[in-house]
């Protein structure tokens, strides 16, 4: 019995164990009421005791499922669940079996709901926070307080997020002064000035879109304690030697009726802060491609350092003051006036040596000059935006004025002479741009209008000048005076629209432009012994230009191929009339400027690009003179022959292989350009290097080819990127100098290997070598070779609060050597938002920098005097 019972216990316990842990299989088929199998139905198994799913499976394409279950239970619950079907639930014994489901369509749909209840009651869509409650002792600016408000985050760059989404508008007393650049305010406005922070949830800033376009984003509005708040921030740096300063102060005044944000910047450290204005205002060119230049340049003032060859901060000896006012006044409820006003006062000194080599068929001429320039300019610019933002229409009108005064005083010393040259080139400009969007039928049409008026009364004097002596048989030292006045009006209006049809986009623009200008020039010679000036050349030129243009373009795109075809046509009438000389020219022509471009990608890593462009135009009315005009101390020009017609062909093909997994990148491109003109400029070169330029009718062309190759590879074992650049250019043209027509050819080869080492996540260094050889040929005979080698070394390290940057450059120019070292160290106090910075520029105190430029028959070397070794210590703060 004992044994038996013992056996029974063993058998029972085996049974028990088997029933507790034996695996069963549940399978079956799920169909709808019509008997059709349904896939992706979730079948879940529960036990009676728990609400947690214990096992689950999904039906396959035939509606079948299979679930393995190992559970300690007598019975199981098996349940189906899926969107759009009602839930079926069965209780079954815990054993292998088949359970089929027949599911009915569920007519109930899931309704919109929110998981997390909002912690703060909402009143409408606005949340209000009293600043005093959230404010802490350590807080300084409103950004510090905003950071503490629930749902608000502020990123390193000052961007404010609400519920993880960036805010779309930052208002102060309901006014948007900064148009998105609100960190100027949020990072500088003291928290004491603000009483309430309001958050408008789901805020749509464009009224016409309200109730039509849902906005998930919020806006922030600050309500001020007092009617007005005055505050600001700044950056101050100083150094030596001589005494250096770099100051940037941003005071602001905020109120309910009027808001002003000002900025004053001044430095003598070689930082051209006026470039900020150019960046802000240069975006108009794109919209009006036929508009005349923004700046009026009647003379060739010359710039004696090639842009980009060397960092401007290395040589720019300046004293600049820039003031900027950003102002906003609400006029009516939906109408706002915003003004941006800039004032610049800048004084620059420049010293350089210019070594020009003129290559002629049987001769060459070398001129060495020392050039000292004092350049002062004053600049006023104001832009007024009037914006109507209502539920019915959107309109933006921009009125701009510009007063520019520029004065250049040059002293040029060469072997024989010292010449004084003085340019005075003021001009003013008034313009108005209007942009509105209208709905016609189902499509939207955009209208743009530009009206521009410019005038300038400019002067050039050169003393002494030999250039005119021969021409007008004058002896002795004479002063040349060139007066030039221009008055110009330009109108341009167009309408444009787009259509999209599957993979095609068509766009169309139709417009009309009119330009009229009066150019009066007078050239005098003043001899020291004569009492009066002698007028020797005069232009009284009226130019008018009518243009009707149509720009159709078609774009096609699929996943491998992108094609763009655009064919602008421009019916142009250009007329010149000089009443004084009783001369006139006129030409009507239909100008074509087609553009074709295609990109094709294949085999994952390859891409092929081909584009071609033909560009046809008549000369710019600014470049036409019936009579002589002095452009600078060495250039006298007359272009009366004919109206110039220019054609330009540009072709480019490139092929690239870019494998992102192996990080092997390669690109080979070929570019050609042909320039055709019906006029050739004839240069009469004088012994002192000056020119008399006239235009002669002689169809001619210049041709250039270039090939470029770039390759780079990241090698993970070395933590390094290696790259290699090669460039070849061949340019062929014809030049007409001293009645001699000859062929010119310039060939330039360059190679540049580079290594970039990412030594650790916080330190990287790079080394680059660049070598360039330029050969100039005249009538196929090699006449000059320039050889440049450059070595660049760069070291960067950055830890949380420290940043170190070391720059080393070594140049060898035809055997002469130059070294530059720059050092930067920055320390950031992460808590207080103060940055300390030490900059040591030109550590080795290098005196000069040399660079060269080459045109068809002139090779010019510029020896630029640099800023001395200087140390600058700076701090950034707010007040």
């Amino acid at each position: 019995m004992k044994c038996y019972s013992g056996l029974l216990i063993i058998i029972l316990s085996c049974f028990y164990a088997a029933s507790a842990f034996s695996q069963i299989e549940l399978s079956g088929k799920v169909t709808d009421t019509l008997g059709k199998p349904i896939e992706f139905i979730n079948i879940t198994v529960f036990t009676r005791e728990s609400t947690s799913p214990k096992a689950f499976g999904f039906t396959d394409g035939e509606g079948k499922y299979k679930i393995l279950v190992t559970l300690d239970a007598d019975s199981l619950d098996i349940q189906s669940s899926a969107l759009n079907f009602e839930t079926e639930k069965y209780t079954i014994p815990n054993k292998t079996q088949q359970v089929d489901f027949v599911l009915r369509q569920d007519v109930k749909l899931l309704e919109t709901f929110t998981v997390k209840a909002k912690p703060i009651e909402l009143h409408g869509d606005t949340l209000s926070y009293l600043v005093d409650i959230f404010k802490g002792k350590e807080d300084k600016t409103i950004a510090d307080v905003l950071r503490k408000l629930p749902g608000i985050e502020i990123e390193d760059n000052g961007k404010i997020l609400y519920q993880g989404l960036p805010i779309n508008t930052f208002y102060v007393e309901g006014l948007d002064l900064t148009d998105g650049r609100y960190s100027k305010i949020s990072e500088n406005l003291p928290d004491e000035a603000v009483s309430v922070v309001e958050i408008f949830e789901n805020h749509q800033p464009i009224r016409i879109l309200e109730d039509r376009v849902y906005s998930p984003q919020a806006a922030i509005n600050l309500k001020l304690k007092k009617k007005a708040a005055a505050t600001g921030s700044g950056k101050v740096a100083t150094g030596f030697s001589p005494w250096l300063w770099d100051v940037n102060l941003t005071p602001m005044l905020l109120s309910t009726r009027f808001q002003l944000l000002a900025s004053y910047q001044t430095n003598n450290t070689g930082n051209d802060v006026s470039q900020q204005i150019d960046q802000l205002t240069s975006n108009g060119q794109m919209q009006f491609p036929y508009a005349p230049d923004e700046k009026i340049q009647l003379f060739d003032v010359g710039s004696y350092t090639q842009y980009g060859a060397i960092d401007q901060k290395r040589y720019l000896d300046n004293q600049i003051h820039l003031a900027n006012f950003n102002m906003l006044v609400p006029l009516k409820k939906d109408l706002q006036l915003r003004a941006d006003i800039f004032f610049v006062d800048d004084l620059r000194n420049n010293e350089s040596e210019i070594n020009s080599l003129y290559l002629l068929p049987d001769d060459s001429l070398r001129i060495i000059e020392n050039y000292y320039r004092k350049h002062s300019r004053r600049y006023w610019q104001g832009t007024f935006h009037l914006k109507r933002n209502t539920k019915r229409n959107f309109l933006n009108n921009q009125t701009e004025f510009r007063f520019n005064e520029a004065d250049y005083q040059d002293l040029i010393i060469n072997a024989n002479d010292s010449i004084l040259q003085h340019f005075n080139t003021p001009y003013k400009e008034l313009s108005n741009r209007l942009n509105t969007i209208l709905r016609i039928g189902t499509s939207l049409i955009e209208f743009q209008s530009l009206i521009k008026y410019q005038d300038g009364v400019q002067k050039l004097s050169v003393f002494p000048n030999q250039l005119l002596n021969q021409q007008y048989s004058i002896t002795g030292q004479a002063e040349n005076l060139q007066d030039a006045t221009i008055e110009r009006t330009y109108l341009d209006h167009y309408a444009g629209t787009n259509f999209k049809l599957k993979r095609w986009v068509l766009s169309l623009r139709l417009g009309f432009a009119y330009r009229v200008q009066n150019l009066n020039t007078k050239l005098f010679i003043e001899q020291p012994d004569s009492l009066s000036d002698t007028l020797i050349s005069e232009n009284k030129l009226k130019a008018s230009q009518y243009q009707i243009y149509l720009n159709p373009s078609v774009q096609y795109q699929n996943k491998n191929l992108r094609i763009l075809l655009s064919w602008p046509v421009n019916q142009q009438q250009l007329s010149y009339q000089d009443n004084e000389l009783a001369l006139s020219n006129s030409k009507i022509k239909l100008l074509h400027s087609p553009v074709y471009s295609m990109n094709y990608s294949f085999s994952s890593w390859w891409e092929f690009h081909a584009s071609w462009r033909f560009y046809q135009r008549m000369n710019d009315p600014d470049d036409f003179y019936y009579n002589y005009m002095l452009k600078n101390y060495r250039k006298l020009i007359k272009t009366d022959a004919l109206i110039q017609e220019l054609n330009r062909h540009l072709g480019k093909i490139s092929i690239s292989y870019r494998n992102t997994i192996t990080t092997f990148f390669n690109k080979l491109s070929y570019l050609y350009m042909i320039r055709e003109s019906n006029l050739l400029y004839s240069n009469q070169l004088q012994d002192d290097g000056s020119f008399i330029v006239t235009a002669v009718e002689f169809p001619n062309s210049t041709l250039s080819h270039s090939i470029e190759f770039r390759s780079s590879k990241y090698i993970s074992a070395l933590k390094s990127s290696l790259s290699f650049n090669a460039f070849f250019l061949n340019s062929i043209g014809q030049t007409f100098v001293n009645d001699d027509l000859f062929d010119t050819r310039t060939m330039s080869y360059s190679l540049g290997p580079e290594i970039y080492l990412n030594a650790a996540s916080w330190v990287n260094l790079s080394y680059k070598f660049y070598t360039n050889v330029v050969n100039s040929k005249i009538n196929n005979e090699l006449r000059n070779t320039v050889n440049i080698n450059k070595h660049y070394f760069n070291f960067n390290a950055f830890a949380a609060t420290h940043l170190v940057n070391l720059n080393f450059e070594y140049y060898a120019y035809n055997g002469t050597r130059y070294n530059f070292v720059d050092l930067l160290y920055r320390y950031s106090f992460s808590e207080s938002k103060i940055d300390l910075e030490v900059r040591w520029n030109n550590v080795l105190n290098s005196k000069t920098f040399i660079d060269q430029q080459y045109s068809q028959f002139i090779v010019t070397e510029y020896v630029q005097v640099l800023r001395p070794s200087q140390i600058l210590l700076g701090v950034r703060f707010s007040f």
Partner: protein
Amino acid sequence: MSKQKSIAILFTIFVFQLFPVKISAQFFALPSEILDTANISVSYTITWKQDTNHLDKVRNEEMLLFVGKSLSLFMSENMYKVLLIGRKAESEGRLTDLLKGEELNNYVSRFSYRIYKNYPKEQITYMEKVIPTYFQYSEPFGVFEWQLTDSTTTIGDFKANCAFTDYGGRRWVAWYTTEIPISDGPYKFRGLPGLIIRLYDDKKHYVFDMEKLERYDEGVPIELIDRDWVETSRTDFLKARENLKHDIVNRAQEAGVGVEGQQRAARNASKKNNPIEF
């Protein structure tokens, strides 16, 4: 637009995994294929730590899961908004204004991927650009081996159950509810008997919290942008992405970005040392 500016914009598109940027024209104009229509979207907040050296710095962003009849799409809400705004602006001929303006700055995203589930069938397809290539790779549904547990909790009004899985070098904890019969979830995660309403890795470096579920009566198309996608594997994709981080200065330079910009890109890349999977 000047050449430099367009280069700069192009470059910013290339590197949007490395620092927040605007998105350009090419995104809007591209034709696409409609794979399915979603009547439901689920929004999740992702809260994550991208820099293991600064674990106190927490970021968050909104993500969307579009649930269609046969497949689903998971992507950044901001990327989605930019697409809508961009297409609208383009159809109204305001594209230049949009690109020049500040509006797009409001829709910055740090996640440019799109994850399609059950496309192709029973596969999870991940699509993302690594400068300059558009990659895609697929994984079978079977990559998630869920371990169910008895733990329960209440999230919002829902009773939630807990499950575990190991994926991409992390152990993940999912809270799902059988009350919402959608077997889907944030990121690539799916395959539980209910919707995942909270998901995090055991270090809580990546946390997804469901915010809301929205129903669209008209339906939102789930699109596949018709691009030259390069098919690869998960391993190769992760390798390409890691290489980009080290090669960023070189690629920024190639795209015409100045020295300061290159160094800023390098600094940003070095901060991104905590990817969701590795």
